[in-house]
């Protein structure tokens, strides 16, 4: 009686433990992957550079405002939207789905860019 209970507990612990560990392992590898695939876009002279960027799924893009004037990074389709970025401030977004993501600066709408995720 006593033995069968302890075996049941052990089994449950193993199953439960595996259940926890599996997603943990996955997220660790996903983090490692994202780190390897961070791409920068620089905002200089009222333009995004590069203005068009093609990246694999899972890539994180970091925008940095290097102008003396604040800018924003706003998805035309409402997918992402930064707060206002003053000089040297950054905004990042991770693209988890394939697609084309046009964006612009909502303060200076002539500034446009595009991220193509494959």
């Amino acid at each position, binding site marked *: 009686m006593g033995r069968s209970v302890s075996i049941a507990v052990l089994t449950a612990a193993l199953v439960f433990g595996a259940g926890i560990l599996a997603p943990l392992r996955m997220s660790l590898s996903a983090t490692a992957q994202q780190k390897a695939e961070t791409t920068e876009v620089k905002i200089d002279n009222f333009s995004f550079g590069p203005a068009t960027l093609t990246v694999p799924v899972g890539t994180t893009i970091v925008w940095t405002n290097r102008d003396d004037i604040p800018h924003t990074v706003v998805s035309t389709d409402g997918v992402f939207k930064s*707060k206002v970025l003053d000089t040297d401030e950054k905004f990042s977004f991770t693209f988890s789905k394939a697609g084309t993501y046009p964006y612009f600066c909502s303060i*200076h*709408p*002539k500034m446009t860019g595009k991220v193509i995720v494959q």
Partner: protein
Amino acid sequence: MTGKVKDEILYDHNHDGIDRRGFLKCMAWAGTGALCVMSGGVLKSYSLSRLPELSGKEALGELSFVQISDSHMGFNKPANPDVAGTLKAAVDKINALSAAPEFMLHTGDISHLSKPEEFDIVDQILKDAKPKDVFYVPGEHDVLNDDGKQFLERYGKGSKGNGWYSFDKKGAHFIGLVNVMNLKAGGLGTLGHEQLEWLEDDVKHLKHSTPIVVFAHIPLWSVYPEWGWGTEDSAQALSYLKKFGSVTVLNGHIHQVMQKVEGNVTFHTACSTAFPQPQPGKADSPGPMKVPAEQLKSVLGITDVNYVQGQHALAVVDSTLG
């Protein structure tokens, strides 16, 4: 005008109606603002730094008010590390007028980052000006992060929609428009359908002889669309004003003086009280322009003057040093 105040284009090297030397003079800009004088239903504007050249009668007219613009409180980059100081300089000039103007117009970009403390500082500085009434329209820097909620709470009492309104002073009709909201990718300033409808209705019952003064942040004429210096649907707005004999449009945004006359409409843009921006297409971008410190501190004004007949070319006013 008296002979003392020269308003013609003096140096038009490219024969395009643009006075480039006048432009450079405009870059000596600290503490700038414009005094607007309504006389015989026609509005004229004078740089605050040139007021000693004007007679008391000229400076008074039937109605006089001041336009200031683009204070960018909170900006602290090398182009001007003391925007509070240069705004105070503008207030000092306003207070030095022999007759106090009736009121002030601020054509937007009061703040640099829409921070409450930035608005507070401007409010505090403008409290020291003799004219007590200030009428505002927002610039894009005043409506960051909150779709203009804070701006409306502070300055939009009694306004419609995103902050547009009109009022009458001494027989002239003033219209404050908002063209910095809901900007679309790749586009220019926008007034929008609701505001245009309101405008049409607002002026419908006015007499044709009523002088009209429209003020908004982004120019309501196409100054330089490549840099976003224009308003998508301004032509429709102006079509409602065709019947009036005298229409004056006052804008900011481009941090330099330009004027243009088209039919019954005179367009003016004002200098910034904070920092200059390059002339259209003459730099990689419209970012702040650094001028030598001694120019910043010692040479004031010489920004704008009254009218110029530009025909269809872009007309830029020359302004002579005192």
